[in-house]
């Protein structure tokens, strides 16, 4: 059984007053490249980073990340 992690970070950024990737990166303490990689699905963040991202948008982690079992 394979799995795929998707996220809504890009949409949440635009909903949060068109927050830039750099602004989000500064908020959660990572580089802009990492935010890009997470948005594109190229990198799976750690639990702590995932929760920081969710906290940055005042959302729960399940509202930001979704695991699809294929």
């Amino acid at each position: 059984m394979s799995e795929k992690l998707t996220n809504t970070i890009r949409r949440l950024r635009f909903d949060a007053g068109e927050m830039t990737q750099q602004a989000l990166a500064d908020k959660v303490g990572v580089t802009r490249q990492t935010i890009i990689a997470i948005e594109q699905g190229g990198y799976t963040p750690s639990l702590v980073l995932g929760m920081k991202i969710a906290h940055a948008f005042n959302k729960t982690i399940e509202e930001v990340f979704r695991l699809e079992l294929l």
Partner: protein
Amino acid sequence: MNRIQKVSWLMVITQGSALLLAVVAVAVLYCLFGFPVAKSGLGFLGIAGIGGLGPLIFRKDPGVVTCDERDRAINSTAAKSGFGASYVVFYLLCMGVFFAKGMQGMVSVEVLALICMLAGITAFLVHGLTILILYGREKANE
């Protein structure tokens, strides 16, 4: 391109150039002058040392965060790959000498140093290549 990628590029170029030039030089000198003189072509391996200047040449990235968990994960994977590759090269070279010379054979001590140097160059070369591949794979999706 971040600092880690720049240092990796320098490492790949210097290590690759050192290996390539050494092989070509030894081959050419061997054809022209034979084996004892051909060994002097190994001097090109010294170019590999320039890769160590990378952290001095490339300054710290601007911004608050210069290295995060993803960078550390990529570096960790690259280090493991480099170590694994160098171990394989070291093992193959040692066993190659053993099978070439046999149980009663003898080799000059410089062969030991050469094996260690080649394993070391392999480690840094594979480390740099792995970093570039892992960053590049994600960049393709940007």
